Protein backbone atom coordinates (compact mmCIF):
# COMPACT_ATOMS: atom_id res chain seq x y z
CA UNK A 1 0.00 0.00 0.00
CA UNK A 2 1.63 3.22 -1.09
CA UNK A 3 -0.21 5.19 1.64
CA UNK A 4 1.93 3.48 4.24
CA UNK A 5 5.19 4.28 2.51
CA UNK A 6 6.81 6.99 4.71
CA UNK A 7 8.04 8.79 1.63
CA UNK A 8 4.48 9.98 0.88
CA UNK A 9 3.48 10.97 4.47
CA UNK A 10 4.25 14.67 4.10
CA UNK A 11 2.28 14.88 0.88
CA UNK A 12 -0.74 13.08 2.42
CA UNK A 13 -0.78 15.23 5.55
CA UNK A 14 -0.49 18.41 3.48
CA UNK A 15 -3.37 17.49 1.23
CA UNK A 16 -5.53 16.25 4.12
CA UNK A 17 -5.34 19.58 5.91
CA UNK A 18 -5.68 21.52 2.69
CA UNK A 19 -8.87 19.61 1.80
CA UNK A 20 -10.27 20.03 5.34
CA UNK A 21 -9.60 23.77 5.18
CA UNK A 22 -11.23 24.10 1.75
CA UNK A 23 -14.25 22.07 2.94
CA UNK A 24 -14.71 24.23 6.03
CA UNK A 25 -14.46 27.39 3.93
CA UNK A 26 -16.93 26.25 1.26
CA UNK A 27 -19.40 24.90 3.83
CA UNK A 28 -19.37 28.01 6.03
CA UNK A 29 -19.35 30.45 3.13
CA UNK A 30 -21.77 28.88 0.67
CA UNK A 31 -23.55 25.74 1.74
CA UNK A 32 -24.57 26.22 5.37
CA UNK A 33 -25.82 29.83 4.91
CA UNK A 34 -28.15 28.52 2.19
CA UNK A 35 -29.55 26.04 4.68
CA UNK A 36 -30.00 28.73 7.32
CA UNK A 37 -31.81 30.87 4.76
CA UNK A 38 -34.04 27.97 3.76
CA UNK A 39 -34.89 27.23 7.41
CA UNK A 40 -35.61 30.88 8.10
CA UNK A 41 -37.97 31.13 5.11
CA UNK A 42 -39.72 27.93 6.22
CA UNK A 43 -40.27 29.30 9.72
CA UNK A 44 -41.46 32.60 8.20
CA UNK A 45 -44.02 30.84 5.98
CA UNK A 46 -45.23 28.66 8.86
CA UNK A 47 -45.68 31.80 10.98
CA UNK A 48 -47.66 33.40 8.15
CA UNK A 49 -49.88 30.32 7.87
CA UNK A 50 -50.37 30.22 11.64
CA UNK A 51 -51.39 33.87 11.62
CA UNK A 52 -53.84 33.36 8.75
CA UNK A 53 -55.38 30.36 10.50
CA UNK A 54 -55.70 32.18 13.82
CA UNK A 55 -57.40 35.18 12.21
Amino acid at each position, binding site marked *: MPQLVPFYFVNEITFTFAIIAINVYILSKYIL*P*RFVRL*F*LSRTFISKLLDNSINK
Partner: protein
Amino acid sequence: MAARSAALKVDWAKITTSLGLRGQTAASLQAFKKRNDDVRRKLQQLKELPTTVDFAHYRRVLKNQAIVDEIERRFNAFQPATYDLNRQLKAIEAFEVEAIKNAEATKEKVDLELKDLEKTLKNIEEARPFEDLTVDEVAAAEPSIDEKTTKLVTKGRWSVPGYKERFGDLSVL
Protein backbone atom coordinates in the same frame (compact mmCIF):
# COMPACT_ATOMS: atom_id res chain seq x y z
CA MET B 1 -78.10 85.27 -14.03
CA ALA B 2 -75.55 82.73 -15.11
CA ALA B 3 -75.19 81.59 -11.53
CA ARG B 4 -78.92 81.03 -11.19
CA SER B 5 -79.15 78.99 -14.38
CA ALA B 6 -76.16 76.95 -13.24
CA ALA B 7 -77.84 76.35 -9.88
CA LEU B 8 -80.99 75.18 -11.65
CA LYS B 9 -79.00 72.67 -13.68
CA VAL B 10 -77.57 71.00 -10.56
CA ASP B 11 -79.09 67.57 -9.96
CA TRP B 12 -78.80 67.32 -6.19
CA ALA B 13 -79.92 63.73 -5.82
CA LYS B 14 -77.44 62.63 -8.45
CA ILE B 15 -74.55 64.41 -6.75
CA THR B 16 -74.96 62.49 -3.52
CA THR B 17 -75.39 59.12 -5.20
CA SER B 18 -72.85 59.42 -8.03
CA LEU B 19 -70.07 60.83 -5.87
CA GLY B 20 -70.79 58.32 -3.14
CA LEU B 21 -70.87 61.05 -0.49
CA ARG B 22 -71.71 60.12 3.04
CA GLY B 23 -71.39 61.38 6.57
CA GLN B 24 -70.54 64.99 7.17
CA THR B 25 -70.07 65.88 3.49
CA ALA B 26 -73.53 64.62 2.54
CA ALA B 27 -75.07 66.37 5.54
CA SER B 28 -73.44 69.71 4.70
CA LEU B 29 -74.46 69.33 1.07
CA GLN B 30 -78.05 68.73 2.19
CA ALA B 31 -77.88 71.80 4.43
CA PHE B 32 -76.55 73.87 1.53
CA LYS B 33 -79.34 72.64 -0.74
CA LYS B 34 -81.94 73.48 1.93
CA ARG B 35 -80.50 76.98 2.29
CA ASN B 36 -80.56 77.45 -1.45
CA ASP B 37 -84.17 76.26 -1.70
CA ASP B 38 -85.27 78.47 1.22
CA VAL B 39 -83.68 81.56 -0.26
CA ARG B 40 -85.18 80.87 -3.67
CA ARG B 41 -88.65 80.37 -2.14
CA LYS B 42 -88.32 83.59 -0.16
CA LEU B 43 -87.26 85.48 -3.29
CA GLN B 44 -90.24 84.10 -5.17
CA GLN B 45 -92.61 85.19 -2.36
CA LEU B 46 -91.13 88.66 -2.25
CA LYS B 47 -91.40 88.99 -6.02
CA GLU B 48 -95.07 88.13 -5.85
CA LEU B 49 -95.81 90.96 -3.40
CA PRO B 50 -97.30 94.10 -5.00
CA THR B 51 -94.86 96.99 -5.30
CA THR B 52 -97.29 99.71 -6.38
CA VAL B 53 -99.28 101.90 -4.01
CA ASP B 54 -102.71 103.23 -4.92
CA PHE B 55 -102.30 106.83 -3.77
CA ALA B 56 -105.59 107.95 -5.36
CA HIS B 57 -107.39 105.57 -3.02
CA TYR B 58 -105.66 107.06 0.04
CA ARG B 59 -106.45 110.59 -1.20
CA ARG B 60 -110.09 109.68 -1.33
CA VAL B 61 -110.09 107.99 2.07
CA LEU B 62 -107.85 110.28 4.10
CA LYS B 63 -108.67 113.82 4.94
CA ASN B 64 -105.08 114.91 5.38
CA GLN B 65 -104.01 115.29 1.74
CA ALA B 66 -100.65 116.79 2.66
CA ILE B 67 -99.44 113.62 4.28
CA VAL B 68 -100.45 111.55 1.25
CA ASP B 69 -98.58 113.98 -1.01
CA GLU B 70 -95.56 113.75 1.27
CA ILE B 71 -95.62 109.96 1.26
CA GLU B 72 -96.09 109.87 -2.51
CA ARG B 73 -93.18 112.23 -3.00
CA ARG B 74 -90.97 110.14 -0.74
CA PHE B 75 -92.18 106.94 -2.41
CA ASN B 76 -91.29 108.22 -5.88
CA ALA B 77 -87.97 109.47 -4.64
CA PHE B 78 -87.18 106.12 -3.09
CA GLN B 79 -84.28 104.31 -4.63
CA PRO B 80 -83.48 100.79 -3.49
CA ALA B 81 -80.06 100.63 -1.97
CA THR B 82 -77.52 99.03 -4.25
CA TYR B 83 -74.73 96.91 -2.91
CA ASP B 84 -71.36 96.52 -4.48
CA LEU B 85 -71.13 92.76 -4.86
CA ASN B 86 -67.87 92.78 -6.81
CA ARG B 87 -65.75 92.28 -3.74
CA GLN B 88 -67.79 89.32 -2.58
CA LEU B 89 -67.88 87.89 -6.08
CA LYS B 90 -64.12 88.26 -6.28
CA ALA B 91 -63.73 86.50 -2.95
CA ILE B 92 -66.00 83.71 -4.17
CA GLU B 93 -63.99 83.40 -7.37
CA ALA B 94 -60.74 83.24 -5.39
CA PHE B 95 -62.31 80.58 -3.17
CA GLU B 96 -63.43 78.67 -6.25
CA VAL B 97 -59.93 78.73 -7.74
CA GLU B 98 -58.53 77.53 -4.44
CA ALA B 99 -61.18 74.82 -4.17
CA ILE B 100 -60.50 73.60 -7.70
CA LYS B 101 -56.79 73.51 -6.96
CA ASN B 102 -57.44 71.52 -3.79
CA ALA B 103 -59.77 69.17 -5.61
CA GLU B 104 -57.20 68.54 -8.33
CA ALA B 105 -54.52 67.87 -5.74
CA THR B 106 -56.84 65.46 -3.96
CA LYS B 107 -57.70 63.79 -7.25
CA GLU B 108 -54.02 63.25 -8.02
CA LYS B 109 -53.50 61.80 -4.56
CA VAL B 110 -56.49 59.51 -4.91
CA ASP B 111 -55.34 58.42 -8.38
CA LEU B 112 -51.94 57.50 -7.01
CA GLU B 113 -53.57 55.59 -4.17
CA LEU B 114 -55.87 53.82 -6.62
CA LYS B 115 -52.90 52.81 -8.76
CA ASP B 116 -51.18 51.44 -5.69
CA LEU B 117 -54.31 49.56 -4.64
CA GLU B 118 -54.74 48.14 -8.13
CA LYS B 119 -51.15 46.94 -8.01
CA THR B 120 -51.80 45.31 -4.65
CA LEU B 121 -54.99 43.72 -5.95
CA LYS B 122 -53.17 42.37 -9.00
CA ASN B 123 -50.49 41.05 -6.69
CA ILE B 124 -53.09 39.29 -4.57
CA GLU B 125 -54.88 37.86 -7.58
CA GLU B 126 -51.70 36.56 -9.16
CA ALA B 127 -50.30 35.20 -5.90
CA ARG B 128 -48.99 31.67 -6.17
CA PRO B 129 -49.25 29.05 -3.43
CA PHE B 130 -46.30 28.71 -1.05
CA GLU B 131 -45.37 25.36 -2.60
CA ASP B 132 -44.53 27.07 -5.89
CA LEU B 133 -42.29 29.73 -4.34
CA THR B 134 -38.52 29.61 -4.25
CA VAL B 135 -36.45 30.67 -1.24
CA ASP B 136 -35.19 33.64 -3.27
CA GLU B 137 -38.76 34.85 -3.88
CA VAL B 138 -39.71 34.51 -0.21
CA ALA B 139 -36.54 36.36 0.81
CA ALA B 140 -37.28 39.10 -1.74
CA ALA B 141 -40.75 39.53 -0.22
CA GLU B 142 -39.43 39.54 3.35
CA PRO B 143 -35.97 41.19 3.58
CA SER B 144 -35.68 40.34 7.27
CA ILE B 145 -34.90 36.73 6.25
CA ASP B 146 -31.61 37.77 4.65
CA GLU B 147 -30.80 40.06 7.56
CA LYS B 148 -31.37 37.28 10.08
CA THR B 149 -29.33 34.88 7.94
CA THR B 150 -26.28 37.16 7.89
CA LYS B 151 -26.68 37.79 11.63
CA LEU B 152 -26.77 34.07 12.48
CA VAL B 153 -23.97 33.20 10.04
CA THR B 154 -21.59 35.89 11.33
CA LYS B 155 -22.19 34.59 14.85
CA GLY B 156 -21.34 31.08 13.61
CA ARG B 157 -24.79 29.69 14.38
CA TRP B 158 -26.08 27.25 11.82
CA SER B 159 -29.37 26.38 13.47
CA VAL B 160 -32.49 28.53 13.36
CA PRO B 161 -34.21 29.01 16.73
CA GLY B 162 -37.68 27.43 16.71
CA TYR B 163 -37.05 25.38 13.57
CA LYS B 164 -36.40 22.05 15.27
CA GLU B 165 -39.50 22.34 17.49
CA ARG B 166 -41.65 23.00 14.46
CA PHE B 167 -40.21 20.70 11.79
CA GLY B 168 -38.04 18.24 13.73
CA ASP B 169 -34.77 16.95 12.35
CA LEU B 170 -33.23 13.76 11.01
CA SER B 171 -30.56 13.55 13.70
CA VAL B 172 -30.35 10.09 15.25
CA LEU B 173 -28.56 11.34 18.34
